[in-house]
């Protein structure tokens, strides 16, 4: 049922391959620290960790160009980070500081960054899809040639917003890459308990939209699928749907006792973990030594340490500015 761990040669130049590894490690180390900081009550509200799914964001983000647009969900720390939002600004946001990427107004679920065209951070399941369709429509009408990458979980597929948006994007042949991160559970509801048709690519076919499936635990497979999808979207023939089959190692949020899945299943998926399997492949190919891995990891942890320092030193937004940015400043 659960496939063998990702294996085989990594078809990239060493620098690019190590970049992918570093990307995944940056997310992993940031989020492990976030979980601790949550326990220390430095971070509050909801905190949804991406741990286990890093290969998807790492593979997909490197398929995009700077002029493209990204729409993500509430499990978006990794997407924001790899899109280019600084770890400092992300962590300061989770601290609720004005130095945060949303000035402390959004928190973990609502990271935004105009300079990298990172359009959030949306916490109503499925709500990012219509937005992505509109961004793509604007790009087409303005002749800008941007691709809009829209990340969402398989849970969103049960929402009307998914079907309406897929139809609209396909009908109008808009440049959207629909990146479905299928981690098998919508909070605690397994896919088979919520969908009559669990083959997600079939759903895309219903809209006449090209679809592909990729192993979301394998950063090579994820990147190759994203690259093909983005290239096809950029050709201008319309949207593409990609299902990344992945798994979240941690609970849905910090409040989740995980009653809906057994530990053995989690362990089996952890054997397919995107970081250690990719490292092993790189080592087998002679592209990575244990010392080099340790150095990349050390750099990630150092970045996290500095981000914590930055967030700790952050300033609270003055309460006098509570109503700022409800409407445009005039």
């Amino acid at each position, binding site marked *: 049922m659960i496939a063998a761990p990702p294996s085989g040669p990594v078809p990239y130049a060493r620098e690019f391959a190590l970049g992918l590894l570093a990307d995944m490690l940056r997310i992993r180390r940031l989020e492990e620290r976030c979980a601790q900081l949550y326990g220390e009550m430095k971070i509050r509200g909801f905190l949804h960790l991406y741990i286990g799914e890093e290969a998807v964001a790492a593979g997909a983000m490197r398929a995009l160009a700077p002029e493209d647009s990204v729409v993500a969900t509430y499990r978006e720390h990794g997407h924001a980070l790899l899109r280019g939002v600084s770890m400092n600004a992300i962590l300061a946001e989770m601290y609720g500081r004005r130095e945060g990427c*949303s000035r402390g107004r959004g928190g973990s679920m609502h990271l935004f960054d105009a300079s990298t065209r990172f359009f*959030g*951070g949306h916490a109503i399941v499925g709500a990012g899809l219509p937005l992505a369709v509109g961004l793509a*429509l*604007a790009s087409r009408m303005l002749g800008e040639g941007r691709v809009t990458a829209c990340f969402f979980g398989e849970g969103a597929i049960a929402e009307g917003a998914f079907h309406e*948006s897929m139809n609209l994007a396909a009908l109008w042949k808009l440049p959207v890459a629909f990146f479905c991160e299928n981690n098998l559970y919508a909070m605690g509801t397994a896919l088979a308990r919520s969908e009559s048709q669990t083959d997600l690519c079939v759903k895309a076919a219903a809209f006449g939209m090209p679809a592909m499936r990729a192993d979301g635990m394998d950063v090579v497979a994820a990147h190759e699928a994203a690259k093909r999808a983005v290239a096809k979207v950029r050709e201008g023939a319309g949207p593409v749907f990609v299902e990344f089959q992945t798994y979240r190692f941690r609970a849905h949020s910090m409040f989740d006792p995980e009653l809906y899945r057994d530990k053995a299943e989690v362990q089996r998926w952890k054997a397919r973990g995107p970081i250690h399997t990719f490292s092993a492949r790189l080592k087998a190919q002679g592209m990575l030594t244990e010392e080099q891995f340790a150095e990349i990891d050390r750099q990630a942890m150092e970045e996290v340490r500095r981000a914590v320092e930055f967030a700790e030193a952050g300033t609270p937004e003055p309460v006098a500015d509570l109503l*700022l*940015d409800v409407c445009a400043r005039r």
Partner: protein
Amino acid sequence: MNAMREISYRDAMREAIREALERDPRVFLMGEDVGRYGGTYAVSKGLLEQFGPERVRDTPLSELAFVGAGIGAALGGMRPIVEVMTVNFSLLALDQIVNTAATLRHMSGGQFGVPLVIRMATGAGRQLAAQHSHSLEGWYAHVPGIRVLAPATVEDARGMLWPAIEDPDPVVLFEHAQLYNTKGELPAAPREDIEHASVRRAGGDVSLIAWGGSLPKALEAADALASRGISAEVIDLRVLRPLDAETFLASVRKTHRAVVIDEGWKSGSLSAELAARIMEHAFYDLDAPVARVCSAEVPIPYARHLEEAALPQVPQIVGAVMQLMGTSA
């Protein structure tokens, strides 16, 4: 030289949309049957022929997706006008309007604004029964982050759209379906204001506060009251959010009596908000409690006599005023 010309509300709105499309290449109109069909209420008739299918864009029956796409297009640099056929159907898009359009600027720390106009028909009075007769303007007026407009005159139908498009934040614009056929005098240079309420008729004895489809009823009631020697001032709210409280408070301070006319249901309504504002800021100026004439608390029924009984009508407004004046109607 008389610069005024007579025009229908429908034609005035069409002229406003046409002008916006001509004036700014980023503007486009999108919604159900806005193109080939010519608009459910014929507002956009002829625009497809003039501007083509990219800028007068027919959508599937997907309110959530096309309103959301309007938000996305606004984020992406366009200035969309999204037409939702009626407020009743806007409930299918409520998530995008309330959770996304209204929140984005604040939630993103001021980085992303949504310069979007959402037009929709509202109101009852055509025997369309419970699912096509809602007046939910008050719901939208509840939400911070959006501006809510209710043009009631041909001048406002013509003049409010452009400043709404120029607004860097989302604007919801309500067109009462009973107004489309009404005619009025349109000045050569219509007022472009989306900030203020207007005094539509000056008077000294009582303030009638109305908007949208209730404005003609309030004006008719004022005529009837004049024949009884009562001078009613009629305030057209025009902007339902943010409220221009100064205009209606100044009127109430002058007349010392207020009747709010609201086609919405009384409970939790915009009329309740207005009464509360008057109580908070003009309590000691009042000679009588604020009165309200609202729809009966019932899903709007089909049968004509029942529908009429459910909606605010001129005799009720007159009656409410007479009661405030201490005179029986």
